[in-house]
């Protein structure tokens, strides 16, 4: 079941969700986009079909789609509702500039993907490694430039998605135990960050990270 055009569609969807993440001020849309990104990126192992054992690939898909596509968005939406925030009001870098930065990140990643010497030829299409790297950069951009604490969590999940795509592209068969362990770590991290954001909003009536350095006493 190796469909280059299907893989390409998945990767383009990932890039589009990245753009939507950076261009949208509504946190709810951002969370939905991260969920969608997790679902489509989670489908990659089955589409690639380089596993000797398809059952393992399917288990991985079910696990990552369930956690990144369903659990994370539900958790974040719940935190969002409890914190009573719905918009990223004034990011440090504006939406248009972020979009342009994402496009330049894509260009840079494509250039890097064509020059970087990888330990083994990437599987799937040549687009896999660049899209993974772009997603990592976009996640970092979200973490750096957004003000609300929940955006930092979203950025963390985006980085995780990027590393996942990069990993699927580079290493044909990661042992499932490692993959599941990473997934578990990400789950615990997002869970804890969700609780932390909730506590911050309870204590301080806001979740603006740039005001958190004034939180003593």
């Amino acid at each position, binding site marked *: 079941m190796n469909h280059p*055009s299907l893989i*390409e*569609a998945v990767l*383009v969807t990932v*890039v*589009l969700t990245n*753009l939507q993440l950076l*261009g949208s001020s509504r946190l709810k849309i951002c969370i939905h986009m991260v969920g969608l990104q997790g679902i489509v990126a989670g489908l990659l192992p089955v589409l690639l079909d380089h596993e000797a054992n398809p059952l393992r690939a399917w288990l991985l898909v079910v696990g990552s789609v369930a956690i990144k596509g369903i659990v994370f968005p539900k958790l974040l939406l719940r935190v969002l509702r409890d914190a009573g925030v719905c918009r990223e009001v004034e990011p440090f870098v504006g*939406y*248009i500039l972020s*979009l*342009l930065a*994402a*496009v330049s990140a*894509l*260009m840079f990643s*494509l250039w890097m993907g064509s020059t970087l010497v990888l330990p083994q030829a990437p599987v799937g299409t*040549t*687009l896999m490694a660049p899209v993974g790297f772009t997603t990592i950069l976009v996640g970092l951009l979200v973490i750096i430039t957004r003000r609300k604490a929940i955006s930092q969590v979203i950025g963390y999940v985006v980085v995780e998605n990027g590393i996942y795509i990069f990993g699927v592209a580079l290493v044909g068969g990661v042992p499932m135990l490692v993959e599941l362990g990473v997934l578990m770590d990400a789950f615990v991290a997002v869970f804890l960050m969700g609780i932390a954001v909730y506590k911050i909003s309870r204590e301080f009536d806001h979740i603006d990270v740039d005001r958190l350095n004034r939180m003593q006493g």
Partner: protein
Amino acid sequence: MDATALLAPLAALVLAPLFLGIINRTKAFFAGRHGQPLFQLYFDLQKLLGKGATYSRTSTWIVRGGPIIGLAALMVVVLLVPLGGLSGLVRFPGDLLLFAYLLSMARFFTVLAALDVGSSFEGMGASREVFFSTLTEPTLMLSLAVLAHQSHSLSLSSALGAVTVTSWLQHGTSLVLVFVALLVVCLAENARIPIDDPNTHLELTMIHEVMVLDHGGPDLAFILYGSALKLWIFASLVVGLVLPVRTGVAFLDLGSMLLGMGLLAIVLGCIESTMARLRLLRVPNLLVGATTLATLALVLAVR
């Protein structure tokens, strides 16, 4: 040159006002009204052409010349634009650029005429028009570049004529991106709803309509006909892209394209009825988003 080359320009010149009529009827349907007749714009044009024109004493020949030059430029564009598989009347390598620059020329003279009138209100509209067109032009050029790259030709007719079912199967993702980008350009360039409202003449958020407030009589007829032609031009690009019917039989192609144009008119009417106009500050976001989509499509195509 055979007679079929005349089909695309003739269809554009004759049916462009009807296209607007279909959009208006769709909007009326959504609003629960009966709406104006389908051929209303033809009646309007006939009425306006029979009237005289009034010119302000502060204005110069530019106000008189603007609508004529604008309409002339758009009519030349109509000769270049193919209707799906039916190629335009004039085609040569590089007419992609002529297409884009003739559209810019039409806009340039509309803007000049608006500034020449001397009303500050029109100057505001002119500045907005120029600002937003600087954002849509890269999108248009990048989308055309994708089509040109996939067909290995710099002519609009062969670039669109080369879009077939197989190219949709092979490069579906980048063509979908180009389609969305072109649809946004079509809405923005023709002052349709998420960007501008063609029906409001006296609101502060409008862009295109404000520039033509002081034109009347035959000049207004030229402007209205020109904007109908412009809408037809962009719509035929979009339909030619999404409807890959290239049978080679002229009348089958023409029939399917006209059907597609009618469907697109209804779709545009639905978009206009179901969406609210964006706040002026949010418009650049949409347009830059469309540019990034077109860039992505080009990256996918060139890679």
